[in-house]
């Protein structure tokens, strides 16, 4: 029968994507994990010391910077979750009111179009102790107000959280708004007929109905938190000291420090591990939700 080009062409057309996936993703992940088991310093050295293959990981967890990065990751995740809450409140209000929807949506969403470097520059300026918002409050006579967050290791993370909430709330608002609009209007009528208070309708009916949207937001949020790097560079560059290090920042720093390839690879592998641990349950839960929803639909 010879070659059937009609069968072959689609597969040939897929070849670049398959090659990229195989090399740039799967192969590279394997490569990095392999490196993390060696003691490569400046150049890769692929001999694994089988007596102690997890040596780099032990070093990693003994490293103060990494531990700071991990706890900051949790702080940032919890703090950024505010963006989901805030996004939902904004979406609910916009959806309820309808007036000015386009205007408000445009205003809340524009930070997403801006580079995080720019975001960081702007917020660092606002937090400037002598010329920024602190001096504005002081000039109003409220001298007890302190916005010098970036200079203090204990508060610097909060400044970063504020900036990232500012940056991402609009995004969650847009997703929530889409979710809210997908809800059947008859639900509202039914709830009104039953005389249920509005906040209870939201809490007991609407939010459970939007489980899927919330899960999507949670996945995207954790993805953003694990990847957070640009904003750190632009706002604090890790400082003061190591107080705003995050795993992404730690790993890039270790990578570019040179001479510590295996160690940096171990950090990268841990980032992947965190992603897997966080995502697998969330993604599976989402897939399950989606299936349940499809099943219910028919």
């Amino acid at each position, binding site marked *: 029968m010879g070659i059937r080009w*009609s069968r072959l*062409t*689609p597969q040939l*057309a*897929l070849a*670049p*994507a398959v090659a*990229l*996936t195989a090399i*740039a*993703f799967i*192969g*590279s*992940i394997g490569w*990095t994990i392999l490196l993390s088991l060696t003691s490569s310093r400046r150049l890769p050295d692929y001999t694994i010391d089988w007596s102690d293959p997890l040596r780099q990981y032990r070093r990693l967890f003994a490293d103060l910077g990494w531990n700071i990065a991990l706890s900051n990751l949790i702080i940032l995740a919890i703090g950024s979750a505010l963006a989901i809450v805030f996004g939902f409140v*904004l979406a609910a*209000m*916009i959806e*309820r009111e309808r*007036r*000015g929807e386009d205007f*408000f*949506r*445009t205003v*809340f*969403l*524009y*930070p997403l*179009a*801006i*580079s995080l*470097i*720019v975001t960081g520059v*702007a917020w660092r*300026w606002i937090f*400037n102790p*002598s*010329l920024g918002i602190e*001096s*504005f409050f002081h*000039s109003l006579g409220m001298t007890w107000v302190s916005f010098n967050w970036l200079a203090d290791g204990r508060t610097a993370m909060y400044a970063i959280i504020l900036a990232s909430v*500012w940056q991402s709330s609009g*995004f969650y608002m*847009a997703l929530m708004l*889409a979710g809210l609009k997908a809800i059947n209007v008859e639900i509202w009528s039914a709830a009104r007929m039953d*005389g249920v*208070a509005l906040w*209870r309708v939201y809490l007991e009916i609407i939010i459970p109905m939007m489980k899927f949207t919330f899960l*999507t937001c949670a996945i995207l949020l954790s*993805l953003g938190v694990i990847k957070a790097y*640009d904003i750190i*560079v632009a706002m604090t560059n890790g400082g003061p000291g190591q107080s705003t290090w995050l795993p*992404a920042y730690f790993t890039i720093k270790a*990578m570019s420090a040179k001479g510590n390839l295996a160690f940096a690879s171990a*950090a*990268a592998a841990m*980032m*992947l591990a965190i*992603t897997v641990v966080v*995502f697998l349950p969330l993604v599976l839960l989402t897939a399950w939700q989606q299936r349940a929803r499809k099943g219910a639909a028919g």
Partner: protein
Amino acid sequence: MTETSSPPAGTVMFPRPKKRIRGRSIAILVFLTMAALFFCIPLYVLVTTSFKTMDQIREGAIFSLPEVWTFEAWRYAWDEACSGITCEGLKRGFVNSLEILFPSLIASIAISAVTGYALALWSVRWAGGFLFLLFLCAFVPFQIIMYPLIVITVNMGIYGSIWAVAFIHTVLAMPVLTLIFRNYYKDIPPDIIKAAVMDNGSFWRIFIEIILPMSGNILIVVLIMQITSIWNDYLIGVTFGGLGAQPMTVNLANMVTVTTGTVSYNVNMAAALQTAIPPLVIYFVLGKFFVEGIAAGAVKG
């Protein structure tokens, strides 16, 4: 419990909707307006500061309008400001960003659209497995593949050039974009593709003549998504651009973090604005597609 008391039996009672709705509306609008003000603060501060003189900035009134509007900071940021060791302003970075943008856009959209088309409309036996793999790849943190990609680009002889940056943009965008295209194409009625297969049968011809003209919407959405994310990228640019092919964001970051001597905040703000303007223009002009792009990218990330 609720404060709404049940109406006495036999009387039909309607709440006075006018009054209640109006009160609530005002409260909501006030809240939304305050939130909007909060969202506008950074942009307002960026704009006003960039037009102020350093003398006025030193007075410390961050929210005041410029006493004298001056473009000096804008000019300086564009033309002369130092970033790292060079002092050519942002214009070099702007050109680099543009040079990175076009090949990245073309390559990433071309490869993802074709892959999505093949996976959605042609029966390839392993399509399901491959899609699942792409779905997983979309979540992989960049750091885990960073070092191998550096080695690969060095061996390709493109490391430190705009081609390396464009190549990495293409690789990293491929999984998500492919899923987006595939989801779009799979909603094309199967009869159309069947008819095309009977009429012509050529994979490429059908793609170019039938499918591509039907992809207008998704192409705009993806285009906007990609322009924004490529333009705003920092990490790939700084990692793969070397010294010669640094995009604007990298220049900006160097400018604001490595300044020695007195800090010219107005120049920093002008530089930040110059970096932000291209995506902002796209956002304000084509906002509708931007929102669609977000939803598309998120729902099937």
